[in-house]
């Protein structure tokens, strides 16, 4: 109702209006105006519409793991060697590998010279690092950090500081698909498709469980099934405005039928390794099955919530760390057994880290910069960049060293083989994360 940004750009003020205080997820591209606008915003040389660059094979896959709620970076990648860390967190600080050795609650060693280790429950991730197939990028963030979950998440999803526009993965497809959406090009596991995957042309497939991914009425009577197929595989009926609610519903119905065929096909085999039973591992197992089946999907998206640890965080954060480490490790060994670990890059992020000082509730409040994690045979392994200072703070929060879009740029260009400037709409120095 009130455009407080003073933006004169119609598209953005309209978006503000539509979504004021509410999420953008799955609502992208609701207006023809918006579609037209964002297409124009990316005035590209014709050549950039070609899917791949020379030397970058088409079979590269990206798996994004979202940690929702704001993962406590300082208790994930632990600066145990810094006294300021222990001062700021008398009850929550994780001890050094030596001090904690007896009770096995000390940090896991990765770089003892700089006094930086991993949460004691991240044994799975530690072994990936030891094998040279994982890296930690320290101090990742963006200017003028926003401490609202929703806004900060939207900023990460859009790669835009005002949280405006389509998702960055959606735009990657929009830029490389030559004008038509890639069916099953991007798949999200979960109830809601994330904003990151919404492009103006490309829309993600999203589902939570493959066995329910069809209409069970087809079993009742063949004529019923045929008529159902006519209704749902027809796409948009004549005279239906494509951007209307109805146009959107008709397109989604068609997408659902097409995806159902492929995905149920992929799920039929037993995985090559045993997965732990947890929410993240379940999702990654599904992703691994689809990769194994040779689906042409280029981006998968999974997510784990529960990181908003305002109170009594030690126990719950510890459980999440164990889930994260063991799931990533199992996923990687499955891909390795399949012979696919060289073509799948996994990237882990959260919308922000947490404040340096603990709060009075045995938890931590919303913060800013935090590490990102990448896994795969192609990553430049180890601890990358510098740990942000724990004493030179910005209102109690860490200052970022690496803009997250520098990592997106590297992933887009060095891994996915597209023009990062065109996708991100701006030039960011590429982080050296791909070997």
């Amino acid at each position: 109702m009130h455009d407080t940004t003073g933006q004169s750009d119609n598209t953005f003020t309209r978006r503000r209006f539509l979504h004021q205080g509410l999420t953008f997820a799955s609502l992208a591209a609701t207006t023809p105006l918006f579609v037209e606008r964002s297409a124009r915003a990316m005035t590209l040389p014709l050549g950039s519409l070609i899917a791949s660059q020379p030397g970058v094979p088409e079979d590269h896959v990206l798996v994004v793991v979202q940690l929702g709620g704001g993962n406590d970076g300082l208790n994930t990648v632990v600066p145990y060697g810094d006294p300021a860390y222990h001062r700021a967190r008398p009850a929550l600080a994780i001890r050094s590998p030596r001090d904690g050795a007896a009770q096995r609650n000390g940090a896991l060693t990765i770089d003892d010279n700089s006094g930086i280790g991993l949460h004691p429950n991240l044994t799975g991730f530690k072994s990936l690092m030891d094998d040279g197939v994982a890296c930690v990028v320290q101090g990742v963030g963006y200017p003028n950090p926003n401490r609202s979950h929703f806004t900060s998440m939207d900023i990460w999803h859009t790669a835009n500081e005002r949280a405006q526009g389509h998702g960055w993965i959606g735009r990657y497809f929009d830029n490389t698909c030559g004008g038509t959406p890639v069916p099953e090009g991007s798949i999200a596991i979960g109830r809601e498709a994330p904003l990151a995957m919404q492009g103006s042309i490309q829309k993600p497939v999203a589902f939570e469980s493959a066995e329910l991914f069809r209409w069970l009425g087809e079993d009742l009577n063949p004529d019923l099934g045929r008529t159902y197929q006519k209704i749902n595989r027809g796409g948009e009926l004549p005279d239906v405005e494509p951007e209307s609610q109805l146009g959107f519903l008709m397109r989604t119905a068609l997408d659902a039928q097409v995806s159902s065929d492929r995905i149920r096909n992929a799920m039929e085999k037993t995985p090559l390794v045993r997965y732990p039973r947890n929410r993240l591992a379940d999702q990654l197992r599904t992703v691994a099955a689809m990769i194994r089946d040779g689906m042409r999907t280029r981006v998968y998206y999974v997510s784990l919530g529960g990181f908003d640890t305002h109170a009594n965080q030690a126990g719950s954060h510890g459980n999440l760390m164990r889930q994260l480490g063991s799931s990533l490790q199992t996923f990687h060994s499955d891909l390795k057994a399949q012979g696919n670990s060289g073509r799948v890059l996994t990237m882990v992020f959260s919308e922000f880290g947490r404040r340096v000082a603990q709060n009075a509730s045995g938890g931590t409040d919303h913060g800013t910069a935090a590490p990102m994690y990448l896994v795969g045979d192609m990553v430049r392994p180890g601890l990358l960049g510098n740990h942000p200072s724990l004493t030179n703070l910005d209102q109690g929060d860490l200052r970022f060293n690496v803009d997250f879009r520098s990592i997106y740029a590297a992933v887009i260009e060095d891994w996915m083989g597209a023009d990062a400037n065109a996708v991100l709409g701006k030039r960011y120095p590429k982080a050296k994360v791909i070997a």
Partner: protein
Amino acid sequence: MQTATRIPALDSTLRPLASRDFDYWKAHHLLVRAGFGGTPEEVRSLAAMGLDDAVDHLVDYRSIPAEPVAADTFDKDIMRPATTQERQAARRARTRGDEAALERFRRDRQRRQQADRRQMRAFQRWWLRRLIETERPLEEKMTLFWHGHFATGYRTIEDSYHMFQQNQLFRRFAVGNFKQLAHAIIHDPAMLRYLNNNRNVWRRPNENLARELMELFTLGEGNGYTEDDIKQGARALTGYTYRDDAFEFRAEQHDDGPKRILGRTGPWDGDDFIDIIFTQNYVSEYICLKLYRWFVHDLPDGPGGPTTAFLRRMARDFRQHDYNVKPLLRSLFRSRHFYHPTNVAAQIKSPIQLIAQSIRSLGTPPRDFGTLLEAAALMGQNIGHPPSVKGWDGGRAWINTATMFVRHNVLLYLMTGRGADVSARRRRDEPSARPDRNRPFDADHLIAHLRGTDGRVDADEATLYLLRFTLGGEPHPDRVELLRSFVNRRGGRLEGPMMTAALALIATMPEFQLC
């Protein structure tokens, strides 16, 4: 939907619809949006009341008897705090290192948590049944609105009785005063726990409640407040906590120093904080937009369009009525704007709307509430477990390729009792032996009024009516053709199982997801 006639301009005022224009289809729209729809007969009797009485009937529901809530519907003591003796016993066991006793305490706690999770599921079934069966649909629909607005999730608070108490609060204030409800919510144990205000003390303020109070509950993100207002507001809320099932103000934890909030300085407490927030027009604007999206359209047109002006008038109306929701909804439901063709069959049904409206309008047996809850969760709306403090996004966020299949399958389940494996993860601890679980669905009543003197129904006429009634608007000619040819291929008589088959197909039409 397709309309051949010229569409009048969308009103930018709350000007009421002319009484003579309130017909069967307008009554249908009203009943669907202010409630969860009804059978053809119920729509006819609402239409017969005329516009004003029909709106009053829905909005002034207090005269309609409601199913009372028995005091012992839920056990309030499952998660009660430990008594002094229990705490002492536990302390003694710890100091003595009495492992057996400690293990007993742990087991007891686990047992209580399990019992509470069972009670939470019983509460969800209880509420879903009310949503489906109530004679006061607007009361439940607004209760659901507030649950999504002041979103509180069970997993964080782990106390089913507090969830039930909060639910009763929302029901009491369903169409009541929003400002009073905002006051009440900062006294509500479930909310205080959910946003950690029980840990907000003057030495170490916790900003969670203060932030969401402004960002999500009243002003809307970025609307006229700063990070500093949040910090000061958090100080005002210090000491607002609860003991067992009731609010408690702890003066010794409250910061009674001066705070500057939204430009006003004083020794404010949490209730002053609310009063200060409500001096801002953003509050009425923000809530009216949310109510508009809930009742009228998911995607209001942009700035400068008629809806902007309409929303401004709604907000002014809301302020003039001192934040009373009832008069606001009364004028909304009478307005021409509300009945405009762009606003009819234009909203994506929430999963609860889909379930409740299907049962109420088609008259299917409700089957099994536990299964329906699982289906609603798979469609993205697990009542009692909103995805975050932001509640549910609604609109297009409900729809993706997977929820589409669940939407198709849950209707099939309601109509046939089959495909109950919409829920793969059914739990065993819930009684589900409802007598109508396997009852066949008899849909012939939907077209009974079309029966001629010879007792026969014209199939072409009936398919058209059925499409209009279920889709809430004029069906696309291709759909009419498709359904007629399906019926004709299979004998041409629209009754019994043929009715069910036709409805099962209609329910998979993308249009069916709109209301």
